[in-house]
């Protein structure tokens, strides 16, 4: 097996749109595309939680008995039983709550209540300012592989399911400040360890820590009626090559304080794996095929050049195979 050990590459941004504008003389005076990109800062890593603790999201019992409350409940159900409620847009075997633990309420597990207040927000991923509506559609497109779904696309903008999910998110965020990166937001960044990351080291960790639930072949476990028991991590039921989770640093950050389920505790920022182990097992999981990147540009190389200039294994050779074939749909 070929090792993949890398150091952090510089993240590049697409400058095409900016250069085009400049070429036709439409760029604002004296402001080049590169300057715009440098001026666009990503949100700072969330601060550590202080004495006050994390945002206290409301209890399910406190959801009001009115239209708004009904929307919140629908949104909560869509979040946790996505395949049952919004299955026509789900092209794999995932639910939103697979990567946002505790029904999207657990701090350090990308909780909804911390995301709500920082949108609308610029995203480097699509190089423009996104509303939350578009952000959730992005989740459907990539993490839920909407292209492989019955509808073949994510929910349309402003559709009922997106309204409901936003109601749930807003409800959970009540009382949290607007426009701030608050404690518990996102996944806690795990710095690249000294030994980089290794697929073969990760394989051993996977066998010991992950396979019991996610399967030796990463296909998870699903009941006879199709209900998800443990989500797939690779193969056709998993998130696709465009999902944030395919990035080794992102999955490492998720895994570090969230996995194994129950053993790590995101609420207490308690890890079961070392930083090195989290990066290694992330690399191993992300060294397998999964559904294709919906932004496919005709070849792995073109797709990688345009969309994968970050820490991932797309278009890399692992175990004698160049990743990026896609799987299933």
């Amino acid at each position: 097996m070929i090792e993949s050990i890398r150091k952090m590459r510089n993240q590049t941004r697409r400058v095409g749109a900016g250069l085009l504008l400049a070429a036709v003389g439409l760029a604002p005076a004296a402001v080049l595309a590169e300057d715009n990109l440098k001026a666009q800062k990503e949100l700072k890593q969330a601060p550590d939680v202080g004495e006050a603790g994390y945002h206290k999201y409301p209890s399910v019992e406190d959801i009001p008995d009115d239209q708004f409350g009904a929307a919140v409940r629908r949104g909560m159900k869509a979040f946790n039983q996505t395949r049952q409620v919004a299955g026509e847009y789900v092209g794999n075997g995932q639910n939103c709550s697979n990567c946002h633990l505790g029904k999207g309420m657990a701090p350090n597990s990308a909780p909804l209540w911390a995301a709500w207040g920082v949108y609308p927000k610029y995203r480097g991923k699509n190089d423009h300012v996104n509303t939350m509506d578009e952000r959730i559609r992005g989740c459907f497109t990539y993490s839920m592989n909407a292209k492989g779904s019955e509808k073949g696309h994510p929910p349309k903008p402003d559709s009922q399911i997106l309204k409901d999910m936003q109601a749930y998110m807003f409800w959970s965020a009540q009382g949290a400040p607007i426009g701030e990166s608050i404690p518990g937001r996102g996944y806690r960044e795990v710095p690249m360890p000294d030994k980089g990351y290794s697929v073969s080291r990760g394989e051993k960790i996977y066998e010991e820590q992950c396979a019991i639930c996610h399967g030796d072949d990463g296909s998870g476990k699903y009941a006879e009626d199709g209900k998800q028991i443990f989500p797939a991590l690779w193969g056709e039921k998993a998130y696709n090559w465009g999902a944030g989770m395919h990035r080794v640093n992102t999955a490492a950050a998720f895994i570090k304080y969230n996995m194994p389920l129950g053993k790590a505790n995101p609420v207490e920022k308690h890890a079961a794996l070392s930083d090195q182990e989290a990066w290694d097992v992330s690399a191993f999981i992300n060294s397998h095929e999964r559904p294709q990147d919906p932004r496919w540009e005709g070849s792995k190389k073109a797709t990688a050049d345009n969309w994968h200039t970050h820490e991932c294994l797309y278009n890399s050779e692992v175990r004698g195979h160049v990743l990026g074939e896609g799987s299933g749909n």
Partner: protein
Amino acid sequence: MPQATLAKALVGFGLVALPMTSAAAGLGEKIAQQGNGKGAAACQTCHGADGSGNGASGYPRLAGMNADYMVKQLKDLAGDSRQNAIMKPMASALTAEERQAVADYYAGMEPPKKAPNAEGDAKQIAAGKKIAQDGLWRKGVPACTSCHGPGGQGVGASFPGLAGQHANYITNQISDWQADKRANDPNQLMDVVAERLTEEEAAAAAAYFASLPAASQD
């Protein structure tokens, strides 16, 4: 037919399909009903002729539980990783073949239709249902059903069925994990979770699972 279902299920879960010879099946039944004459008493003395266990005494239902899970428990009860004064001499007196035989025998038994706690305290059961299905995420405890299956029916050999199991038995296990008397869970997954439960929470979740009819583990 329970045995065929079991064999199919074992294969379906990627586990080795054990050849269910009639000799083996006979051996399991014999030990369950008569003991093995070498220190292992008849299992049914405590676990019931129908394998339904005894709630008051804390003897678990065995009928319909996963065979590989039960084999591991017997092995661990004979050793140090699962300490139980009653079961230790019994488990120690069984050979590997006998452990497999009794496990297969009970796995193939239909569990009782009535839930042990079917008429339990409704308020406690409701509280327990919430814990079982939603977890206690304010302190980072996942839903029991995350690992034990959507209905608590169990998942393969590693995550035993809880539905239709005696509440007493379940709370005893939680206590044993907290007291380090039970340490045979894979990767300490249950140990860590058990440490975070209060007595009240464990009792409620157990009461809920005990109020559900058992499902034969497939």
